[in-house]
């Protein structure tokens, strides 16, 4: 950009901020004022708009989780009425799934990094990118309206006929919110696919791309092909509520289970939308902090595609006890086992990457370690529920709740936090406080396990999910879980505080405080509005550290 930019710290200097400078002009201060933010087409600013709104929804969803866990401290339904409780867990699920997990990494880190990582000036369709944020906000507004209007009480899965015929809650408003936010997701995916296909820098072949890009590409395929199905399903549900006649109505020969098939046709791939980007982040963190290319790069890249494809073929494992025929149950079970294999491949490859690496323990690396451990447990417990004989017993119990929270929270959320920490210097030009960050990571890890491990035991004991009150003998485990949740909450609040603090007060980071490889680190922190002074040309794979001093074997 401007010729006034001071050169960055030299390669042999001590790490971090000694001598690090922020460029005089960059995407954050290039333009000021509300309009420049609310009408921006710069992918980096849009990423920050998303960061802000997603964080708000995360804490709202978290608040509902705390309500749920507080009620579950005692066996009786004594803190709130059943109706309020049912709304609390529904709002927790709806907000966390549709307004936090699905957009989290793609819309913040993805939006920020995809153009940078491929060496482009922006995404393919910057205005559509802005539109996607507005759709997210409008969808969110409907969700808030539903909440203010009394909430939705159908569970985030909206099963018919309860949602279409029996619920007295704000199902329509909530459904519209989900519907609109789905299109935000679709447009994000569309933008990523076209950008990755058509805007890679010269020399950046597919197999030189960062694994973050492969992960987001696979995620985008799912967003494009899966989300429309839940959109139309929700729309059909909305029709039924408004017109009071519809295709899920058993009294006219309709099939309420058809809703489940259509719903899970998206919602199962959706969990891969939620976890694949996290896996992409972990690949970057492991490579960056072990200073090595990921072991088995092409296997990890292809495993993302395999997960995306196979993920579309397993929805029926949510319907093992919903009256599905035994033969279709078998098909869904075997494919569910197959989809576990690519995830295993990734875990083994990440582990192998550490062998003869050069590993440092900054906070992002700690989150990566945490991810591998917790995702491992979550993924392994997926093998339990894929076994139909066991799933019959644990379906709709806390076992499943624990399983998916290990993946979503122990997996995706840890990856998100790890990625936020890793790229925070790039996004803001400043460092987060390392000591506090490490402490928070530890608190999160401990709090998480205390919250969710007891739930595996509760589930196998037979405690069903979505239960306002429960038999006395389940109390001890529930109390442990709630205690963990309060610790976990602290672990999430601390980053809020120190990230906000660091925005203005953090140490200046410089271009590449972690000395990682990747096109995003080849430009200033924060980057200029158009990302690169001059378009980069690529000659080797991303995480090639050979030019630095190799480890003596």
């Amino acid at each position, binding site marked *: 950009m401007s010729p006034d930019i001071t050169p960055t710290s030299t390669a042999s200097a001590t790490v971090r901020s000694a001598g690090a400078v922020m460029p005089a002009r960059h995407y954050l201060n290039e333009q000021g004022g509300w309009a420049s933010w609310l009408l921006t087409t710069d992918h980096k600013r849009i990423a920050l708009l998303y960061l802000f709104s997603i964080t708000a929804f995360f804490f709202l969803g978290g608040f509902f989780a705390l309500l749920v866990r507080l009620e579950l401290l005692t066996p009786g339904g004594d803190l709130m009425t059943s109706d309020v409780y049912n709304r609390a867990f529904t709002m927790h699920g709806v907000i966390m799934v549709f307004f936090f997990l699905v957009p989290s990494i793609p819309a913040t880190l993805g939006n920020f990094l995809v153009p940078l990582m491929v060496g482009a000036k922006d995404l393919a369709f910057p205005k559509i990118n802005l539109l996607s944020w507005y759709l997210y906000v409008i969808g969110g507004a409907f969700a808030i309206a539903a909440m203010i209007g009394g909430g939705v009480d159908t569970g985030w899965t909206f099963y018919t006929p309860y949602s279409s015929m029996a619920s007295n809650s704000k199902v329509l408003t909530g459904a519209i919110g989900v519907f609109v936010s789905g299109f935000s997701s679709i447009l994000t995916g569309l933008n990523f696919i076209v950008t990755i296909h058509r805007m890679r820098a010269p020399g950046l072949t597919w197999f030189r791309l960062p694994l973050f890009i492969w992960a987001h590409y696979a995620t985008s395929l799912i967003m*494009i092909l899966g989300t429309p199905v839940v959109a139309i399903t929700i729309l059909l549900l909305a029709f039924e509520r408004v017109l009071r006649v519809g295709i899920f109505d058993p009294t006219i020969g309709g099939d309420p289970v058809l809703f489940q098939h259509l719903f899970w046709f998206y919602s199962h791939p959706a969990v891969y939308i939620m976890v694949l980007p996290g896996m992409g982040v972990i690949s970057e963190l492991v490579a960056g902090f072990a200073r090595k290319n990921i072991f088995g790069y092409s296997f990890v890249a292809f495993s993302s595609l395999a997960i995306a494809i196979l993920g579309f073929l397993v929805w029926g494992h949510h319907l093992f006890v919903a009256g599905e025929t035994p033969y279709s149950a078998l098909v869904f079970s075997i494919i569910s086992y197959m989809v576990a294999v690519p995830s295993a491949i990734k875990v083994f490859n990440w582990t192998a990457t550490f062998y003869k690496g050069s590993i440092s323990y900054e906070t992002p690396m700690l989150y990566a370690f945490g991810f591998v451990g917790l995702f491992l447990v979550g993924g392994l417990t997926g093998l339990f529920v894929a076994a139909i004989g066991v799933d019959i017993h644990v379906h709709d119990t806390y076992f499943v709740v624990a399983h998916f929270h290990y993946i979503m929270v122990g997996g995706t959320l840890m990856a998100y936090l790890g990625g936020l920490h890793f790229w925070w210097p790039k996004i803001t030009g400043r460092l987060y406080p390392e000591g506090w960050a490490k402490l928070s990571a530890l608190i999160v890890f401990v709090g998480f396990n205390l919250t969710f491990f007891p739930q595996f035991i509760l589930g196998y004991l037979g405690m069903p999910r979505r239960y306002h009150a429960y038999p006395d003998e389940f109390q001890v485990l529930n109390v442990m879980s709630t205690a963990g949740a309060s610790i976990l909450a602290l672990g999430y609040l601390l980053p809020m505080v120190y990230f906000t603090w660091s925005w203005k007060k953090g140490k200046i980071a410089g271009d590449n405080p972690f000395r990682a490889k990747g096109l995003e680190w080849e430009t200033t922190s924060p980057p200029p509005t158009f990302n690169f002074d001059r378009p980069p040309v690529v000659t080797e794979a991303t995480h090639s550290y050979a030019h630095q001093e190799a480890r003596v074997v």
Partner: protein
Amino acid sequence: MSDGAIAHAGGDPAPHAAAHPRLAHHFDTLGQQKDAASLGMWVFIAQEIMFFGGMFTAYLVYRMWYPAGYAAASNELDLVLGGINTAVLIASSLTVALAVHAAQEGRQKQIVWYLVATLLLGVVFLVIKYFEYESKLHLHPAHHAAANVRLFPMAGWFHVDGELVPVANEMRLFMVLYFALTGMHALHMIVGIAILLVILWMARKGAFTPRWYTPVEIFGLYWHFVDIVWIFLFPLLYLVNRHH
């Protein structure tokens, strides 16, 4: 921190100053921009296919379960109007293809005429659709005094030869999907027409040249897609068991 791994291409720091006015700042060439727009529209169409696909799935499931009810309800639809609409849409795909061709050749007047023709055909389609819906939604006052007031004929009654006959449950399922499918389709037509108006306005101002006519081309893709959806809808909805 350059260490040789990434070379930076030299060149004009502001290459776009002399570029085509339609070249966006983040693309290097018009060709790249057009490829991106085209791929974007194909990806969008893929998601539209999945969107309609959900409804087609529901349709297929209930058709397998209730063939008689489906046949009865399908036979209530107006085959003539449906047939005319099919022909109208196919013709409009032709006119939009001709518009794209005219844009490729730079024939400004032809672009406008063919786009206008497409627009008119699209409007004709919607008008016919309106009349079809109106006849199906005809509400007989005497029959909705009952406690369960519901708006649509699938709720109670069909007009058949001037008589009101009660609607069987399976016919209701058909009609819900009929309205959902054709309604969604009509909505896509309306959006298409709105976009077409904008493109028509641009064409009138001579915005399209053989070097740049991307909006016409990708609009054409979208319009063809909407046409193809109808080509599936028509036999599935109107032609069930018509050979009797």
